[in-house]
């Protein structure tokens, strides 16, 4: 009976997926002007990095990657809370979430 030849999945596949998700997130940060969507793109990039941590962890059969992902999750939660609070305050002052409206420090 012929073996059903499904391609095997290894570290390279997960790293490629992680790179793809990271790229998409980075494009979101670079191209979008809506601060909320930029924030969400940053979360996407963090998740992509988590995926590569876990893939390396699986490849080396070492749990350190799991621990690091836990820390990244905690930092992401803190970042989202503080970042969104700043955004709410900015919106109260400017009535906008467009980053092009907040550029006094550049001029």
């Amino acid at each position, binding site marked *: 009976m012929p073996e059903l030849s499904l391609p*095997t999945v290894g570290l390279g596949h997960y790293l490629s*997926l992680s790179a*793809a998700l990271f790229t998409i997130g980075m494009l979101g940060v670079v191209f979008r002007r809506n601060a909320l969507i930029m924030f969400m793109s940053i979360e996407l990039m963090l998740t992509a990095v*988590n*995926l590569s941590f*876990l893939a390396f962890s699986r490849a080396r059969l070492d749990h350190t990657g799991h621990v690091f992902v*836990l820390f990244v999750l*905690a930092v992401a939660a803190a970042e989202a*809370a503080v970042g969104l609070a700043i955004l709410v305050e900015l919106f109260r002052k400017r009535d906008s979430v467009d980053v092009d409206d907040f550029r006094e420090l550049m001029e």
Partner: protein
Amino acid sequence: MEALFFYLFATLAVLAALLTVTRRDAVTSAFWLISCFLCVAALFALLNAHFIAILQILLYAGAIMVLFLFVIMFLGKDKPKQGGGSRAMLAVGFLVILGLGATLARLLGKETAAFEAAPASFGAIERVSELLLSRYLFAFEMTGLLLTVAVIGAVHLARREAHGSRGAKARADAELTRLKARGGEGVDA
């Protein structure tokens, strides 16, 4: 079988991610991001990281995205603008695509060997927590401190000025009387 699930969830995750960054409406974006996180959580489970997969769903797709949705709906009217980034910004963007695309292509070329079989205990919550509470204990405690600081900071930033200027007090009083009046109407009706 594992490969099948990997390709299924990987495709869905990339699609959802693309939709996240291209939708104009932030609420639509947030919902696509939630589906992307769910797919990534499935991939975490495929990598034997069951505990992290559950955390991804509870924390990311649950708590953090609810916070996002709440803020998006709180901010409300989001007037979409035409145009956007400058020409320099566009160039930087394409450089980013090129650079990361090249990395991606290189990664695809090598390291395609399958993972070796994991022992049954790999990814068990006991193993992770042993490491977390021994070698990384200090970092773990600092994470708790960081979260406390973040909560205090967020509350302080987002709080309306409760005991600020007299103007703020007057505004608050006016708001209160208005609300009371509306409440009275509600009872009458």
